[in-house]
């Protein structure tokens, strides 16, 4: 391996990249989001957690331009914007990695990275520039991809996730939305992807990560926003939050089995030994 420059964290936290206020979204009789607020700073990883049906996916799709909110303001880099469609979101600089990754298995890594944004010389694809750029991009993520000329189908789950995340960076976005990036991955691959998220933050990107996995969330995020039944339930700084608090916020009750057991342990430390 050749030397990879040691990325000094270029954290310019403080600058608000994306902020949502008073977002409402209704599907027929279901009020999916009610006055939801969310703010992301540059160089910050915000984890979006919540139980099934809490509105995480709806919120992500609203930011990604798949849904239009019924009410509320989306501000991007300080100016109110309307996100009209996924293409509009990409133009603004909001890149989304959906859970199914949306890769073409029959195409190689380069073709997937630049799908829809190919470099070309006149009518002909410029494979050489794309390949060089692909390596540069993968290097900047310290990604472990053996070759960019093999079909994506031949890659492991973590490598596929890496390709999908690298692809989201092709248009130099400001915000990256990751929908359940570790959901289908093994232990080592999860670690690889979490490293990747860390690197995105170090590059000064604002990252919104949706996850079910409390361990992953606590490992990599700076802030945790909890949604419950379509409303903001709680918000924690990650280093201050305990798993119990998170579970309580997600379920909306401290009176459940998990919380009771935790309480018993706290009361009788020797009993849990």
């Amino acid at each position, binding site marked *: 391996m050749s030397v990879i420059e040691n990325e000094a964290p270029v954290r310019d936290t403080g600058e608000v990249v994306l902020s949502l206020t008073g977002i409402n979204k209704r599907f027929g009789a279901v009020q999916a989001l009610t006055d939801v607020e969310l703010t992301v700073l540059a160089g910050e990883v915000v984890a979006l957690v919540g139980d099934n049906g809490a509105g995480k996916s709806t919120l992500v799709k609203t930011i990604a331009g798949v849904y239009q909110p019924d009410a509320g303001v989306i501000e991007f880099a300080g100016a109110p914007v309307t996100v009209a469609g996924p293409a509009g979101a990409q133009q603004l600089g909001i890149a989304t990695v959906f859970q199914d990754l949306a890769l073409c298995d029959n195409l190689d890594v380069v073709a997937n990275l630049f799908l829809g944004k190919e470099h070309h010389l006149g009518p002909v694809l410029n494979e*050489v520039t794309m390949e060089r750029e692909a390596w540069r991009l993968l290097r900047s993520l310290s990604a472990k991809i053996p070759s960019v000329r093999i079909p994506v189908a031949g890659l492991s789950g973590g490598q596929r996730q890496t390709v999908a995340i690298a692809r989201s960076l092709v248009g130099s976005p400001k915000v990256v939305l990751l929908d359940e990036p570790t959901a289908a991955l093994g232990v080592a691959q999860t670690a690889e992807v979490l490293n990747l998220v860390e690197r995105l933050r170090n590059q000064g990107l604002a990252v919104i990560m949706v996850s079910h996995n409390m361990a992953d969330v606590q490992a990599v995020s700076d802030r945790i926003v909890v949604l419950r039944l379509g409303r903001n339930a709680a918000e924690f700084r990650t280093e201050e939050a305990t798993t119990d608090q998170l579970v309580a916020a997600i379920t909306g009750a401290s009176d459940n089995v998990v919380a009771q057991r935790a309480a018993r342990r706290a009361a009788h430390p020797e009993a849990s030994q």
Partner: protein
Amino acid sequence: MTDQLTDPPTPAVDAADERLVRVVSPADYLRQLGGRLRGGDLGMLPVIFGLVAICAFFYSREPTFLSSRSLVTMTLYAAPLGVIALGIVLVLLLGEIDLSVGTVSGFTSATTAVMFVSHGQSLALSILVAIALGALIGGGYAVLFVWVGVPSFVFTLAGLLAFEGALYWVLGDQGTINLPRDSGLPEFTRQKFLSDAQGYALVAVVVAVYVGSRLWAIRQKRAAGLTPPNLLGVVIKAAALAIGLGWLTYYLGIDRGWGYLPVLFAGLVVLMDLLLRRTRWGRYVYAVGGNEEAARRAGIRVGMVYGSVFVLCSTFAALGGVLVAGQLTTVSQSSGTTDTNLTAIAAAVIGGTSLFGGRGSAYSALLGILVLQAIRTGLNLMNVDSDVRLIVTGAVLLLAVAIDSVARRARSSSGRG
């Protein structure tokens, strides 16, 4: 100096990962090839082996099968159906199907014959109208598919019936129209051949363009810090190309040589191959065939891709129909209706284009139609009736699809998608 002694040479950007299997020596190359085959990445190897086996079989039964005369005739008869199969390859790459290419080819060629012979229009105009009709039919299919959402199987099945009716309607009560043998179309398809000098010149141009493009690729890749293609490999391939094509030109030249028609077909195949592999449109065709939803989210206008492919397929069908008419010097109520459809589809599949979309190449039309034509010619030489020919063709088609399906399963278990 000391730095250079202590540091290993920096590997090319794309060879830096130590887990990557290096391919340096010819033995590495063979090993990699073996791995690919086991993994179900067969490409065109089955059809090439099949072609060799079929030729060997018929040659052992009837040595005139591989005579120069027989081969020239085969190239002439294979070409028009090959043009139709080329359109089928495109449709199959999207995972769709066009069952109507046969009757579309019959209908459009009948239009040409009626305009040219019965109405005394110029030949060029008659052919242009036929090709434009083909494009229009493809446009109609595109609308049905993209906007209405009818499955391609259904609207092309409807087209199969409707354009057979249109063929009868255009021919009216004439039944059969004969094209004058001295008119341009039959001459082009039956009597025009490259001279030996022209043939060798064409081979030289092809080899020179190949070598030039590879050398340019090596330069570009080296300048970009990537692993360039192996120079020795390029030389070997160029030599094989020159010797193979040169020998074929010599051998065909004993009889009549390269007809204009097979050269046109080969030119179309090369053109489509370049469009598919080297342009954004071709990339999008493979992407849509591989994962339509991913292509849509990547901002590709999926409808345009489908539309362009249906238009091209019907256009190739129309062109192929006109060429068939020129070759047979006649258009009748049976034009394009008997087995044109299935021959064209079988050729594309036998040539190695997957029915499941996203895999295949323009060359599969060429190889597939050669296999089918070899079977047809060989059985004709052995005086076997068409019933056996149909059975054998069916068996070969089934074998090709079975190989495709097995390879697909091997791919999904070895991670080649």
